[in-house]
């Protein structure tokens, strides 16, 4: 066996060992890689524009969905505010009419 060895030679031997993997392990690694790549394609679909920049379809869809949710929440809030405003106005109107017609319920005077 060799009596002297350097760190570089250790690295070379480790590389050799990695390249001498048995067929079973090499196939398993290949399958693992394919599986991982499928996951990537499932999570984001990408395309290249004419400037060579890559865009992710998935991220745009997510962004659109976020905007849609924000718009729905905002419109619900607005609707709620408008409804509350109208109902309170209506109840004030009832009291005003009651005051004018001297037809106030007794509990109004209790306070």
């Amino acid at each position, binding site marked *: *066996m060799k*009596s002297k060895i350097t760190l570089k030679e250790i690295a070379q031997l*480790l590389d050799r060992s990695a390249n001498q993997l048995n067929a079973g392990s090499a196939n398993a690694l290949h399958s693992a890689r394919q*599986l991982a*790549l499928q996951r990537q394609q499932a999570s984001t679909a*990408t395309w290249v524009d004419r400037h060579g920049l890559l865009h992710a379809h998935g991220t745009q869809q997510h962004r659109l969905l976020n905007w849609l949710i924000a718009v729905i929440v905002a419109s619900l809030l607005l609707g709620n505010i408008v409804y509350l405003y109208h109902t309170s106005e209506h109840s004030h109107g009832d009291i005003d009419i009651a005051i004018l017609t001297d037809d106030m319920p007794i509990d109004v005077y209790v306070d």
Partner: protein
Amino acid sequence: MNLLVSAADHLGATKLSTPQQLSEFLAQVERRAYKQAQFAVRDDHAALDIVQDAMMKLAESYGERPPEEFPMLFQRILQNTIRDYYRRQKVRSFWTTLMSSFSPQHESDDFDPLDTLQDKDNASQPDRPDDALLQSQLIAVIEEALSKLPLRQREAFLLRYWHEMDTAETAAAMGCSEGSVKTHCSRATHALSAMLKEKGIDLS
């Protein structure tokens, strides 16, 4: 290249990686990653599972990141996956020990360190049988010594001297300071040197 990336970032567009680039990267690192996991867990099937997990995590969570970020991210994920495996093993061994104390003591054959020394049947051997034998013996001795190193020392040693990362890159991949990387590397080299010396090999 960095300028281009930062300019693209500045304009609000990042150059993302393609599935082809990720595939090339994984093909390039998968064997080394497998060996790294094997040194750490000393179990072929567990090592394969760890590498597969790490590949999937990279693809799922960081698959669209710029390709130059892949090596660091993958190493970080791989180290974390190995650590998760250790944690699970620790919990499992705790319960196994607890349960075995209630059962009769019939020790089956557990892990034997000599198993790692056995050379696998492989077709790619050097031409001369003598050289092949010597080389496989040397590889076995080195791999045995590496698997005896503490986890962090082995990580630092492999990243620095096998993956040829510089101290800053190793520190980023390991999530520690550059000073810690230097300490781990120095200790690993000393320990490795001592273990190889026992076998009549001088590490210079």
